[in-house]
């Protein structure tokens, strides 16, 4: 019995040392006790899929179809890519009237306090790292760029830009600025334009 407990004690210490405390860092995938049905064979957001030829779970809509809630492009409008139907071709979705930047806000956008509050929040999330909280182009990232070219959004040049052009810039990017159509919805982009107008008015330039 003495031997048994001696061995048990040694074994316990060895096991305890092997297990280690909770919360230690490790890089192998976690051990799964009962993996039944944990990983079901279905398409999941942003995950690969063996089922499809290109290995991606996310699908491009079948040619000739339109996702629910989107409009097909009108006749005669040149589509920039296979997915261009997903953006309508009216002022709300493009910031353009024909070939020109539109002035003013589209009728679908109601200028009120909630829109401005939304615009403020989104501006701080998506624009302030580069353009700064007040839009003056001195965001934190501009300190790291070799040549800081970040535009000052409250100077008279941008102030005199039509709303449609700012919307278009957010959507497609310009020069060194990337496009933000993937992360900001159409309404959020207009909200940012509205808030930016407020910042420009407040700056007094």
């Amino acid at each position, binding site marked *: 019995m003495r031997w048994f407990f001696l061995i048990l004690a040694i*074994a316990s210490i060895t096991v305890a040392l092997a*297990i280690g405390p*909770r919360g230690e860092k490790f890089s192998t995938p976690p051990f799964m006790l009962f993996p039944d049905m944990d990983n079901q064979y279905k398409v999941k957001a*942003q995950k690969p899929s063996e089922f499809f030829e290109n290995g*991606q779970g996310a699908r491009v809509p079948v040619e000739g179809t339109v996702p629910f809630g989107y409009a097909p492009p009108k006749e005669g409008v040149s589509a920039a890519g296979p997915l261009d139907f997903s953006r309508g071709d009216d002022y709300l979705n493009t910031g353009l009237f024909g070939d020109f930047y539109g002035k003013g806000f589209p009728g679908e956008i109601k200028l009120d306090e909630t829109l401005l509050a939304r615009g403020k929040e989104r501006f701080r*999330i*998506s624009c302030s790292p580069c353009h700064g909280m007040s839009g003056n182009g001195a965001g934190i990232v501009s300190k790291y760029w070799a040549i800081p070219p970040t535009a000052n959004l409250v100077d008279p040049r941008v102030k005199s830009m039509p709303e449609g052009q700012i919307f278009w810039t957010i959507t497609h990017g310009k020069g060194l600025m990337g496009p933000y159509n993937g*992360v900001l919805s159409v309404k959020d982009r207009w909200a940012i334009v509205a808030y930016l107008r407020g910042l420009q008015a407040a700056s007094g330039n």
Partner: protein
Amino acid sequence: MGNIFPRWTNLLAIKVLVCLGALGTCAIAVAWYSWTPKYTRVGYMPQQPIPFDHSLHAGQLGMDCRYCHSQVENSPHSNIPAAQVCWNCHGPGKVKSDSPKLEPLRQAMDTNYEKYTGQPIEWVQLHKVPDYAHFSHQAHVNRGVSCVECHGRIDEMPVVYHAKPLSMSWCLDCHRDPGKVLRPLDQITNLKWGADDLDPESFYAYVAGKTKVSVEDLKKSDQGKAWDRELIGAHLQKAWSVHPPQDCAACHY
């Protein structure tokens, strides 16, 4: 008749029982300690294709989580950013564009690069609930639950690791008593937020507006209570009438 069993066998059965008991206790202790998500998942820190540093981007640069995880508020799934999002800052002529650490990014994005593939960056997923349980980010982050409650201080992690167990009991512990964790909706992505950052006057005015109880009555009922997360959460829970579900069908369907 002589003794068939020698004397030492008298205690044998008891000794065997004691030994088995001790062995069993040890085995159960090991299982109790290590066969649970608190042990198997917490601390999982896989090697990512790009050594992306949250403590730099979210902490030092002060970027909001939603710059990158942009769909977290309007979808069950919190997205990992597309390579385009990194490209906004790490594209040619911008920040550290030729850093060797960003090799996979150039392969995904830079059409002029000789090793261009156009394939997405394959980030390794850490947090995962099993497919038979359904979790939704938008249901939580729009109801005052911050990222920090479920992911820990991401803005201090040079490499993301699994900070909470994500077990069913962990989900339910919070669902039974969400008052402790709720916070104002504009502070969801501010992981270092604390009760001291909130101004009591404007908070009481907000709660009064929501609950139709006057500020004086609210203050009177709070007299002598410490101004802390628990107090704020309790008010918010009432003001927003937060009732997290506990029935099985809420998560298993």
